[in-house]
């Protein structure tokens, strides 16, 4: 018998004398370093930007957030950018959210597993990977050229309006929204559906009473992250018509049709982009300050969504 012939001392010798593994420690340290540097980058970015922005906050407080665009650095504010961005997000939410959820529900819950469905699914995943600037082209083509051209509004309507931008961004986030939602739906255990169908619920009753409520927290946090991403998008709006402007007056009396019509709009990332190319060096600080505002808005929304998701995941 192997064991009884091995003396206890030999076994002790093998088991003990802990070998500190250098390789182990080194690898762990190196890996932690990579992770920390990613975070250091984020902090550097924030610090660098903040440093440049401080003069603005010192001299103007938050008033530049509440003022409108102006050609003069000392007067210029980003209110219109923020409002524009929020309005765009409104479009995104109103259009992409219901459409995305509905499409995902179809694909996850209804669609038979046919070639066609697989194709549609592949198509959506691919759309999610299409560079945003290509969506800009779509926006340019569709909302600026086709809608105007086709429907003959060219006379009254500049294509470069909020609707065009909003639709472009909505279309941009739609595939991501569908994927997020589909993932959330997939995470709902099949057992729950079977349970519901098993007591005689129809498909729609099952979805409405069980699947959607269970998936909703995940759908919502996913959507918030998606919308936040759209908030920071710049490139498609360059093509799809947000104003790169030093000044435009927002017409207080403008109605919905004015929005569709000639009302100009801009978005916060574009304001930043535009500030940065102004000759006045004070605009550089203003750019930094605007970036700080953008980051604070985005990162806090992101952080909230991420924390919410984390909570939700841990709860379930």
């Amino acid at each position, binding site marked *: 018998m192997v064991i009884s012939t091995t003396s206890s001392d030999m076994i002790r010798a093998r088991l003990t004398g802990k070998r500190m593994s250098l390789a182990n420690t080194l690898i762990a340290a190196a890996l932690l370093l990579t992770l920390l540097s990613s975070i250091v980058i984020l902090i550097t970015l924030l610090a660098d930007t903040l440093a440049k922005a401080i003069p603005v906050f010192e001299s103007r407080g938050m008033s530049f957030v509440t003022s409108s665009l102006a050609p003069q650095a000392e007067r210029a504010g980003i209110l219109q950018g923020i409002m524009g961005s929020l309005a765009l997000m409104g479009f995104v939410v109103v259009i992409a959210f219901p459409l995305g959820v509905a499409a995902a529900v179809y694909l996850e819950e209804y669609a038979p597993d046919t070639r066609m469905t697989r194709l549609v699914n592949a198509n959506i995943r691919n759309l999610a990977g299409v560079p945003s600037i290509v969506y800009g082209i779509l926006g340019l083509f569709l909302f600026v050229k086709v809608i105007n051209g086709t429907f003959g509004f060219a006379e009254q309507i500049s294509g470069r309006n909020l609707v065009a931008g909003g639709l472009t961004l909505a279309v941009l986030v739609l595939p991501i929204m569908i994927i997020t939602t589909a993932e959330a739906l997939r995470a709902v255990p099949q*057992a*729950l559906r*079977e349970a519901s169908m098993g*007591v*005689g*619920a129809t498909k729609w009753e099952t979805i409405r*009473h069980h699947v959607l409520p269970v998936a909703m927290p995940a759908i919502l946090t996913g959507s918030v992250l998606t919308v936040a991403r759209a908030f920071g998008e710049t490139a498609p709006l360059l093509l799809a018509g947000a104003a790169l402007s030093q000044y435009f007056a927002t017409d207080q009396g403008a109605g919905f049709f004015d929005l569709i019509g000639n009302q100009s709009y801009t978005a916060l990332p574009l304001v930043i982009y535009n500030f940065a190319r102004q000759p006045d060096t004070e605009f550089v600080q203003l750019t930094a300050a605007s970036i700080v505002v953008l980051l604070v808005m985005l990162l806090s929304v992101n952080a909230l969504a991420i924390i919410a998701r984390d909570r939700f995941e841990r709860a379930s």
Partner: protein
Amino acid sequence: MTSDEKEIDTMTIDHAVREDIDLRELPDRPVLFDVTDLSVYYGDFQAVADVTLGIREHEITALIGPSGCGKSTVLRCFDRMNDLIEGARVEGTITYHGIDLYGADVDPVEVRRRIGMVFQKPNPFPKTIFENVAFGPRIAGWKGNYDDLVEETLTKAALWDEVKDKLSEPALALSGGQQQRLCIARAIATSPDVVLMDEPCSALDPIATLRIEQLMMDLKQDYTIIIVTHNMQQAARVSDRTAFFSVDVTDEGQRTGRLIEFDRTEMIFTNPTQKDTEDYITGRFG
């Protein structure tokens, strides 16, 4: 109803010779499901072939057999749950109260309201205990006193005493065994006349398992129960009749489930007619 008079137990024909054996006879209850030449396909793959058997009212019928022999597949035919599976196709007939379950004008949703199902893993809705029980009747548009209904149902499911003070707590806070009893309560809340159970105890510990088995035996007063189980001992313990399935492997390696023997449970476990059954229950099978 003619199906009652019909001789359904084809597997017992060659038992006729030993009809004299004085086993405790089961009362001769009417046949509820009459399954004739049932075959189920998943796409091109024939999962189950030519199953013929009769499920009698107020009995517990167990389906046993090696993994992949099609127990779940057959079970899910009884409430048309297979409809939910892409590409699943059913041949042969299953009548229920004499009505062809797969008839053109039968609405599967309606079928499932009358035939409850309990699954392998306890799967309560992530709602309150109360709402779990009330859901089925609610969507069926039942008008009545829900408080009474829930109490009655939970009592039947041997759960009332344990949960009566926390009906509005989330069902997921219950233990596994309690959850499974809740699922049984949920299944019987719509007053089905059949409860199907697919390995209802395989996720439970032995104590919870015994409770569920007890419950099943209590429930057969009111319901007809069909249970799929991997656990021969369980089938032996709880069921009145047992259907033993096995797998035929063709030369091309296609594995098709077949009903080998269907008989009173004690016959299956003490003295099966088929060698395959004997080999399976004594562990000589591989």
